[in-house]
């Protein structure tokens, strides 16, 4: 009986594409660019990959497509789809599969041409919400934002602070899509999409691919790059439709983060860098509260005055996030790779000094799936 996944598996390779448009490439071709880079980063042969973890919004049977595309015969496949959080969920599954010996080299991968390609979804189940025409995915987040404003007095200016902080990080990241200066007034005055969320409260729609390779800790030091260990993970959900969410101001990131921090044996105060799924500005506020970086209801105040921007007390979304760096349909992979690169010390102008512990939270569906993972350097094992 394995009593914990703490430190059992490590990330030894990551790969990212450019985040600008890649017209004429399909999602698999974009994914392949990232996979090639992750394989090179890990210094392995692709034939060593025997675990595949992959999902997207454009096709079913994704692990089969991935195995075929790369000419692999995996011993373990996971095509779970919990929305954009799924790749953080994959880290949990991969760590478990590696621990049990179901696979030896796990590939977690994603690619999307959502900016330049035709973005279509497989048929979804009809629901009782459809007739009302919510503008998904924005409407559910707008409903959560409005409820948060109602209960805690959170303001549009405070939501805007999230976007402004993300932009300041993006200005330090040459790979980020949006690097022009941005002010709170710019965000508040932008065209309204679904009240209270305006255009600049919403994430980008970009192309992009990302891939990550994980192995058991026994092998983790045998690769060219500094290993980054998974120290803790927690995956929770409490609804799918937004009308079934018990409390629109508290997400399942609360129990997910509690589980992840407990497994890692750390507290929010120990964390050096935080990477959250900022599909909308309200997300960052909700997750900072739910994960325990501030009290419930204090998130608006916490993100203000540059507190999560470069130079602030807590570095959050250091690549520029989904709001200013990249958001190709599902963002969970990209926030984890930023955490890995921060812990490796590879982040150039945006590098957080002495970063040893990173907390990631993936969000899926309409605030529905929440998966927190804590990553750490060798020193934190």
């Amino acid at each position, binding site marked *: 009986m394995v009593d914990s996944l703490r430190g059992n598996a490590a990330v030894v390779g990551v790969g990212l594409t450019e985040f600008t448009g890649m017209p004429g490439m399909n999602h698999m071709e974009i994914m392949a660019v990232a996979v090639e880079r992750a394989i090179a980063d890990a210094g392995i042969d692709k034939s060593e990959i025997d675990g595949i973890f992959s999902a997207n919004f454009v096709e079913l049977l994704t692990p089969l497509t991935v195995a075929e595309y790369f000419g692999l015969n995996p011993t373990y496949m996971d095509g779970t789809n919990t929305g954009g959080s799924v790749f953080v969920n994959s880290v949990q599954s991969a760590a478990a599969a590696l621990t049990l010996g179901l696979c030896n080299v796990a590939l977690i991968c994603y690619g999307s041409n959502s900016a330049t390609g035709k973005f279509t979804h497989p048929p979804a189940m009809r629901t*009782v919400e459809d007739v*009302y025409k919510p503008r998904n995915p924005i409407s559910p987040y707008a409903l959560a934002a409005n*409820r948060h404003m109602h209960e805690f007095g959170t303001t549009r200016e405070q939501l805007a602070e999230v976007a402004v902080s993300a932009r300041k990080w993006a200005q330090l990241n040459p790979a980020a899509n949006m690097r022009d200066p941005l002010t709170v007034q710019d965000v508040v005055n932008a065209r309204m999409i679904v*009240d209270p969320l305006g255009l600049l409260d919403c994430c980008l729609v970009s192309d992009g691919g990302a891939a990550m390779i994980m192995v058991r800790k026994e092998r983790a030091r045998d690769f060219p790059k500094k290993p980054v260990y998974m120290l803790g993970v927690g995956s929770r959900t409490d609804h799918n439709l*937004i009308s079934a969410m018990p409390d*629109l101001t508290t997400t399942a990131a609360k129990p997910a983060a509690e589980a992840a921090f407990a497994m890692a044996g750390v507290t929010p105060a120990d964390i050096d860098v935080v990477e959250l799924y900022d599909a909308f500005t309200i997300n960052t506020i909700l997750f900072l509260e739910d994960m325990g970086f501030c009290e419930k209801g204090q998130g608006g105040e916490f993100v203000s005055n540059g507190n999560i921007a470069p130079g602030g007390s807590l570095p959050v979304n250091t690549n520029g996030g989904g709001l200013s760096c990249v958001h190709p349909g599902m963002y969970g992979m990209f926030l984890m790779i930023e955490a890995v690169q921060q812990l490796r010390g590879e982040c150039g102008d945006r590098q957080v000094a002495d970063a040893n512990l990173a907390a990631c939270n993936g969000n899926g569906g309409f605030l529905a799936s929440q998966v927190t993972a804590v990553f750490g350097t060798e020193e934190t094992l």
Partner: protein
Amino acid sequence: MDNNKEITNPGPLQTYEDNLAKGVFRIQQCRDCGSHVFYPRQLCNHCGSSELKWVDVTGRGTVYSTSTVRRRPEKGGDYNISLIDLEEGPRMMSQVMGMDPEDVVIGMEVSAHVGLIDDQPAVVFYDKEQGDKEW
């Protein structure tokens, strides 16, 4: 548990929609735990029982959250999307009608009507004060 319980067709979702088509808004209630259940299900999402019966509702509810979807006038203009807490307990998505969408506020008391959205029967809500207004 009765493993030989008769399965009744159509299923709960179709039954809900058939009721709406007749202008009737009914939801389920669990015979075992007493909870009201929405959206319509085969099993009670509170206790797991399959002993669900259809019941009338008061139609009274409270706006739990609200938003305005911005849409160009030529496509029909702005419209409201709200979450309504029914007096019986369940929460549902709906539209609050009969007023400017941005005038809908959290905590407002509303009443249900079965109307049509794009020719499809749907439960919509009006400000309680004008609840009996025909539309």
